[in-house]
């Protein structure tokens, strides 16, 4: 019975999210982003390691559909040629008009693994010759395609927060639940620990923890440990709020009834008390996803998070740290724009969910 009600309320939440035009846009953006990173290998013309050392910091490829003679044509592009300009001491990129390359759709290219396990080599688009270079959003210092790396980077930036949530929320729930339920000295001692974690400015703690990771880890080990660190920072504040709620819930009569039957305290906490905090937990989860995304990108931006050659939006934005670099190559700012769009969408949805579950709140 209870389950059915929950399902219905979940469905009505979704219904209301789709009705509002702001949250509908936000949901559409997020669905697009997550679909693109799911099919990153298919959409990206290159792998994340592919690099053309002769074309570092090449500007975005220009795609033409009208020939110089003024006729309509199948989309094509030219390669860039890098020349050194002795007057400005800069590298100039000029289109090499001697050879044109046509775009091909659904053609074979580099191998990749769809969803991480299905071997595949069909790409959404590529050029008709392997000599052609199609850099939709330019390249980075190593001549790697930014567009492809943004897709692969999104796989890390947009998922690491969720994984960290799945670690920190159960811990926070259980910790807050036990502390609030047992009360007294145990509660006191348990809360001192959360206070201690919270009294170190979180970013200081984050970078100190990230810095002690050994340098010679594989990228998946690093990913896991960064996730754990993010989760470690996040659970304390959450568990304090849960504890506060548990303190008031445990005074209700049905909890006494459960005690009288002789139910185990852990069972009472998990089965009878914590479900009562569900609406707060849902709101807290949706509102804390962006925080995790920002924490990961900040960490990677400083060079302490995800390391090269892996991509994440934070470590791609690292190249924009030198402003001289950005002024000539504005496409390096795109990862920052994507972080912003993703965070904004999550915030809008989080606010809307809070308004639905807590109609009294007037923040929006």
């Amino acid at each position, binding site marked *: 019975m209870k389950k059915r009600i929950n399902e219905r309320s979940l469905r009505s939440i979704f219904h209301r999210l789709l009705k509002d035009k702001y949250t509908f846009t936000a949901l559409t953006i997020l669905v697009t982003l997550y679909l693109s990173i799911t099919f990153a290998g298919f959409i990206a013309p290159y792998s994340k390691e592919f690099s053309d050392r002769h074309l570092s910091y090449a500007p975005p490829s220009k795609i033409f559909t009208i020939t110089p003679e003024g006729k309509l044509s199948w989309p094509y592009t030219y390669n860039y040629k890098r020349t050194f300009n002795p007057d400005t001491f800069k590298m100039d990129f000029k289109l090499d008009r001697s050879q044109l390359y046509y775009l091909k759709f659904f053609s074979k290219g580099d191998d990749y693994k769809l969803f991480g396990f299905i071997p595949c080599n069909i790409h959404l688009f590529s050029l008709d010759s392997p000599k052609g270079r199609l850099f939709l959003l330019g390249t980075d210092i190593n001549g790697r395609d930014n567009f492809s790396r943004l897709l692969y980077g999104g796989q890390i930036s947009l998922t690491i927060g969720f994984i960290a949530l799945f670690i920190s929320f159960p811990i926070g729930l259980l910790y807050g639940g036990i502390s609030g339920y047992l009360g007294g000295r145990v509660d006191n001692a348990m809360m001192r620990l959360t206070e201690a974690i919270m009294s170190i400015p979180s970013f200081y703690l984050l970078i100190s923890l990230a*810095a002690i990771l050994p340098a010679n880890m594989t990228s998946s080990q690093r990913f896991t440990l960064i996730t754990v660190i993010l989760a470690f920072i996040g659970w304390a504040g959450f568990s304090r709020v849960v504890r506060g709620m548990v303190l008031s819930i445990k005074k209700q009569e049905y909890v006494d009834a459960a005690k009288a039957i002789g139910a185990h305290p852990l069972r009472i906490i998990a089965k009878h008390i914590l479900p009562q905090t569900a609406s707060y937990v849902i709101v807290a989860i949706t509102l804390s996803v962006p925080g995790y995304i920002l924490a990961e990108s900040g960490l990677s931006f400083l060079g302490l998070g995800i390391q090269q050659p892996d991509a994440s939006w934070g470590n791609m934005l690292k190249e924009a740290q030198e*402003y001289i670099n950005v002024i000539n190559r504005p496409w390096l700012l795109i990862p920052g724009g994507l972080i912003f769009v993703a965070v904004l969408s999550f915030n*809008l949805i989080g606010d809307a969910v809070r308004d639905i579950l807590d109609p009294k709140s007037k923040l929006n």
Partner: protein
Amino acid sequence: MSIPVYILKRILQAIPLLIIVSIMSFVIIKLSPVDPLAELKLNPAISPQTLEAEKERLGLNLPVYMQYFKWLTSALQGDLGISTSGEKVITRLMERIPNTLLLTSSSILLTWLIALPIGIFAALRWRSAIDRILTVLSSIGMAIPSFFFALLLLIFAVKSGWFPIGGLTSVNFDKMNIFQKILDVAHHLVLPVLVLSTASLAGLQRQVRGNLLDVLEADYVKMARAKGLPENKIIYKHAVRNAINPMVTMLGFEFAALLSGAALTEFVFQYPGLGRLILEAVMKLDINLVMASLMMGAIMLILGNLLADILLKLVDPRISLN
């Protein structure tokens, strides 16, 4: 409870907290696979005697818990060791803390000065076009990553030439008179303060708006209206004051968020603050400095929260300090 007694009580409560924090940071540092003296050994400016003294002070050949007590006793005596640059950790901290306090306090000031009127304004025009626009703007302000915003502003500074590019003082700072010095620092502060204020401004504006909307529905406001008080008096004399009170507790949280947020902003703007110091220390694995900065961050945070609570007591006499 009178305020001095309360302060004393809070300070006493903070001591076990700081001990836990210090144990935690000590454990974190001990987990690090790096030799804490490696960097010191590489620095030719540090004499073998200093190195030996440092080894003795850290007690590296003792068991871990003894090392912790050794660190604790020397820290309590005010000796935080030396940094890899050869300077005393304490001098480096003291250089940076005022700068960070300057940055965070000017950000808090600016945030409150702007957020209050905007929040009140939005609440009084609830659901109007301008309220909607402000809500969208505050969503944008909350979503933009501080380091990204800082980068954008830095590029703006370079392109327009209106603002200095990073740092806290100009090259010829020493030759300026006091008035020019203040102007110079203020000029350097504009962009970092703008970055730090943007995020908290958006949040605070929403809170003010939400609180005021709640208060405007309270019975005493209806009563005041029924009595025929002019609307202005109802809002500014009765509603706004009560709407702001709960915000004062947020000052503590804001301070915490600012300390954290400042690290990235300081990094992008090359601002000589505590956040950038700990970042550099972390990157160079300057163990003494990391440890001391973590502790210093915690102390500042606890003090900030204490100040917020006392301030709340001062503005709202209904609050009892128990």
